[in-house]
């Protein structure tokens, strides 16, 4: 399903980024980096716009030729970005949403871990395995 999963801190530096090993890693770093502008735009629109846009899930940020980029921002302004292969047309919005939910609960567990320092890069094994599961489903 996912080809790249990234967690970006409040201050816009990466806490966690992982992509499928077969492809050019740097390209995904660029894709995720670019997506942050769209995230910023969508989040700042909240408040002025309709109440239903107050959801944490931001939906499709932008499509490129090969990939679709989805975004999610927690209340603590931590961003999650998932990059999906465009060829995977069977993937529904609800599935993406549930992927983000899973990612968010796992991230919450990381935050509540007393050995984790907020703002450090994420090195949790259980978080890793959640992300792996999302990537395995794809192949």
């Amino acid at each position, binding site marked *: 399903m996912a080809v790249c999963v990234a967690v970006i801190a*409040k201050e816009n530096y990466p806490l966690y980024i992982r992509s499928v090993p077969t492809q050019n890693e740097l390209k995904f770093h660029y894709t995720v980096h670019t997506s942050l502008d769209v995230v910023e735009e969508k989040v700042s629109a909240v408040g002025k716009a309709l*109440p239903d846009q*107050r959801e*944490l899930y931001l939906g499709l940020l932008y499509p490129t030729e090969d990939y679709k980029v989805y975004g999610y921002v*927690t*209340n*603590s302004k931590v961003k999650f970005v998932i990059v999906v292969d465009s060829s995977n047309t069977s993937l529904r919005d609800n599935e993406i949403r549930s992927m983000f939910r899973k990612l*968010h609960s796992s991230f*919450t567990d990381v935050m*509540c871990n007393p050995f984790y320092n907020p703002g450090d890069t994420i090195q949790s094994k259980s978080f890793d395995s959640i992300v792996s599961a999302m990537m395995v489903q794809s192949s």
Partner: protein
Amino acid sequence: MDNSVCNVGHTSMADEALFQFLHNEVIQYVNTTESGETENGRCVSKLENMGFRVGQGLIERFTKDTARFKDELDVMKFICKDFWTCVFKKQIDNLRTNHQGIYVLQDNKFRLLTQLSAGKQYLENAPKYLAFTCGLVRGALSNLGVKSIVTAEVSVMPACKFQVMIQKM
């Protein structure tokens, strides 16, 4: 404090007592390691820092399924209602603001003070029992992107006022 604290419907009295006992013990412990007159300030700031980290973690959990906040006041209301109910089993009794970044949260029966005598005798010990909560609020706010200074004030025993000063960036 785990996730179950959040489920107000399922809480038992035991939960409540455990939190209070633990809180009291933490204060005792910090107090003995930092003994002496001049160390009192250090004791308070240590407790405050503990609260800060706990607040950061807690708010991450509590806001997992809530909609995005509209503004600062929305955040403060969440702290007064949901956050306070989850931690202290009651809401803040009164929230006041000057709309310029100062909020006063008044709790008429603050749970961590209810076990202390209502008289004037322990009034000087009160700051130690409020430091953790100050940190809790500051941590929660900071994780929601609101930088603040939180101070507490007691005049009559179980009642307590928390003043939140928002720091504009």
